[in-house]
């Protein structure tokens, strides 16, 4: 079973690398959207610093969502999804492999880019480390929750819009605790509880989301 999961992971990574534009686009979207805020709200450091954590997180949420529609869509269109649900490996494991690949190609670049954008938004240096830690716990959760949405909208027309309506509300807990952890760190308060809750969210979605997504995929191929 592990072999099959790794094979799916390797294939999706290889596909993402060969059509590298997708991954790059997510990061580019992240960087450009964040850099719009200083133009919009003005260059006062105090204002930027106040909103920095929120802006980085909201933009990361949107960037992560942007890439979700390709998670299952191409496999659905070329028939690979039929065969993936027909392998001796449980579909839940296949979903885990695909989500892991999605996170490595979109979540990880976002984590790397986030401290740089925090600098751009004049976040206090105490926040950088916690921002990266919170992103490391939060972005896999986003990919997992997103996989359920991506599986549900397969075959729907205008699936992209529908996907955002389905998934964005479910991203709110990650947003709340992600921003709160950074704010706490900047104010010199204890940020442990927020990170722990984010860890709990990750564990809960790790159990529930692949299961829900695989059920949705089986519906989609029918």
């Amino acid at each position, binding site marked *: 079973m592990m072999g099959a999961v790794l*094979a*799916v992971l390797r*294939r999706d990574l290889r596909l993402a690398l060969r059509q590298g534009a997708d991954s790059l686009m997510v990061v580019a979207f992240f960087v450009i959207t964040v850099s719009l805020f200083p133009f919009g709200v003005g260059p006062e450091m105090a204002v930027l610093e106040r909103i920095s954590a929120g802006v980085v997180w909201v933009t990361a949420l949107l960037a992560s969502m942007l890439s979700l529609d390709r998670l299952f869509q191409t496999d659905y269109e*070329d*028939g690979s999804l039929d065969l993936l649900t*027909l*392998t*001796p*490996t449980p579909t839940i494991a*296949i979903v885990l492999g695909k989500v892991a690949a999605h996170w490595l190609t979109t979540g990880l670049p976002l984590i790397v880019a986030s401290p740089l954008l925090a600098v751009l938004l004049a976040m206090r240096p105490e926040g950088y480390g916690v921002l990266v830690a919170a992103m490391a716990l939060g972005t896999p959760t986003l990919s997992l929750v997103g996989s359920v949405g991506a599986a549900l909208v397969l075959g729907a027309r205008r699936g992209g819009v529908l996907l955002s309506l389905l998934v964005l509300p479910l991203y709110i807990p990650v947003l709340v605790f992600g921003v709160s952890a950074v704010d706490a760190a900047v104010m010199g308060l204890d940020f442990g509880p927020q990170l722990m809750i984010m860890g709990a969210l990750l564990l809960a979605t790790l159990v529930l989301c692949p299961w829900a997504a695989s059920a949705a995929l089986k519906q989609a191929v029918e």
Partner: protein
Amino acid sequence: MVRRMIPAAVSDPPPSAAASARRFSGHGLVCIRGERIVFANLNLTLAPGEALLLLGPNGSGKSSLLRLMAGLLRPAAGSLAWDDGPVREDPERHHARTRYVGHTDTIKPVLTARENLAFWAKVCANEDDTRATLQARTDAALDRLALARLADVPGRMLSAGQKRRLNLARLLAAPAPLWLMDEPTTALDKGSVATLEAIMAEHRATGGMIALSTHLDVNLPGARVLNLDDFAVDAATAYGLHEDRHPEDLRA
């Protein structure tokens, strides 16, 4: 003779497709698509070495039956079973024993032919298959379907017939006893059809089973014919209990 033009099989013994010599059967199958009953009360059995030829006009449910047998569709009524238990109770075991070849070619344009095939060999492999076994099987399958020269060509450069052959190579690269083939000869030239017929004959000789739908003449000696029209519900015989028929029965 067109058949002679294709070089005979590579000397490798056919993969151990029929490791479990078990019968596969379906009983009282009903398929409903979009509130329309496609077929009802359909029974079928496949014993090792047997082949089932699905015939019927467009929309008679050939593809639906194959998808149903593969486990992609759930039957509205009836059940599918192997000798050692219903499919529903252990779908993963069923998936390990079946290979489905549908209309789509399932080929990633940016992966090479070998990468495409090796991926499917890997995800369908048994736990105890070593990397070397998988590689040998993949190479042999490419060779057999005359794709060895194209092994490093990206999927997007392949022609329709080559894509189809690569898709069929999956059957050899990831062996399983039951092959479900939905119009496998689409886009194939005569020579490739002959190769496919030879591969199917070998598969059956080693105890494999085949269910195949087609519009064209595919040479499947001794195959039983299942005419989907007989199970259409608006036919006069609706809801009569049919057994699947031998060609002799049809002539009568």
